[in-house]
């Protein structure tokens, strides 16, 4: 069966969607991604949709689901490279992908993930230090 490949880059997972997704493929992607997040303990998921020309409410819902499910497992999701025509259509449709981070391209998406995770790590270290001091 056809599948969308998921690449692991350090603490992040990278998915590039190159075809128009039909429903089953999108649902498979959702499952695969979530099980990869739990298997690898990834801290971020980056989905590149620059080659996707149509995002309807079903696709929008899949993206939202991936983001919420990942968040529960402590991973942030960034959707990158949305085409202008797709963005205008989604807004008109009333779908604003709440809870999903967006970035212009893969590079900026990586940067964004790094800052999100970086802040997290810094906060944890600080907490550790405080705990040590308390001891």
């Amino acid at each position, binding site marked *: 069966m056809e599948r969308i490949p998921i690449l692991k880059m350090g603490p992040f997972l990278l998915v590039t969607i190159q075809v128009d997704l039909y429903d089953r493929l999108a649902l498979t992607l959702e499952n695969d991604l979530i099980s990869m997040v739990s298997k690898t303990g990834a801290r971020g998921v980056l989905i590149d949709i620059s080659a996707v020309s149509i995002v309807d409410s079903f696709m929008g819902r899949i993206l939202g689901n991936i983001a919420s499910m990942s968040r529960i497992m402590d991973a942030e999701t960034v*959707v*990158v*490279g*949305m*085409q*202008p025509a*797709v*963005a*205008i259509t*989604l*807004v*008109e449709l009333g779908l*604003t*992908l709440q809870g999903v981070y*967006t*970035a*212009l*391209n893969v590079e*900026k*998406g990586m940067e964004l993930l790094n800052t999100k995770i970086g802040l997290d790590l810094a906060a944890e270290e600080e907490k550790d230090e405080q705990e040590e001091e308390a001891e």
Partner: protein
Amino acid sequence: MNTTAQILQKKKNTILETWMQHQLSDATLRDDLMTNDELLKQSEELLGSLLKALSSGNYENIYASEYEQVTDLLGDISIMRARQGFSPRETTLYVLSLKKALCDTLEEEYKDQPEVLYREVMQLNQLLDNLSLVTVETFIKGREEVILRQTDEISEISTPVIRVWDGILALPIIGTLDSARTQVVMENLLQEIVNTGSSIAILDISGVPAVDSLVAQHLIKTVSATRLMGAECIISGIRAEIAQTIVHLGIDLSNIKTKASLASALHLAFGMLNLEVRRNDRNKSTKLFN
């Protein structure tokens, strides 16, 4: 071929002459928009095709194939006149003065047969009335095309996207935002974001006369679309009265970064990109010149 058509055909030159006289003697003649030679050429062509159509014996249906050439010519003339800036009255008078010329000729020919004259004149009257309706219709259509083209031009001209800094775009909106305009604004802005890889866009609404809930909705849409692309949007140029109406109308802009002036929006944008603008130290710069 019926007799009236024959008579008219024979008297073609006289009719043309009378028609031209009518036109030239009219106080509203626009010799500033069109030379008399051009007018003569145009009139001759139209009269020729009309007489040819009349010879078919059809006086009623101007949509029949015989009249195709006539209506096409009239259409061209009216559209041309619309573009040249003739008034609808002047354009209609053009056809109506032909009616007068035709009737004068018939009156001359049939002066001994009043009942024939009456019948023929009525027929011609009806025909030319129909033709003048066509003229008015096409004239208005021509004007509408001009208006549509101008609307398109205005909405394109009035939405330039300016690159104010590396990674910062500004888009001054001037005039009212309706849905068609918002569409153009969004398209231009988002495309420019992709082209330049900018991560911040400033929408300046100093030139928007009033913000009602519809305009606000369009602004919110633009901001949401920008965010979906992965860029941040700041709205600047919010005047006091606009702030008042926004609050009075209960429009929620709390999710959107707003600033009073373009300058402070730019300042905020610099901050978001971790940039800093500083005044040059005088002493240092003078040293450079020594």
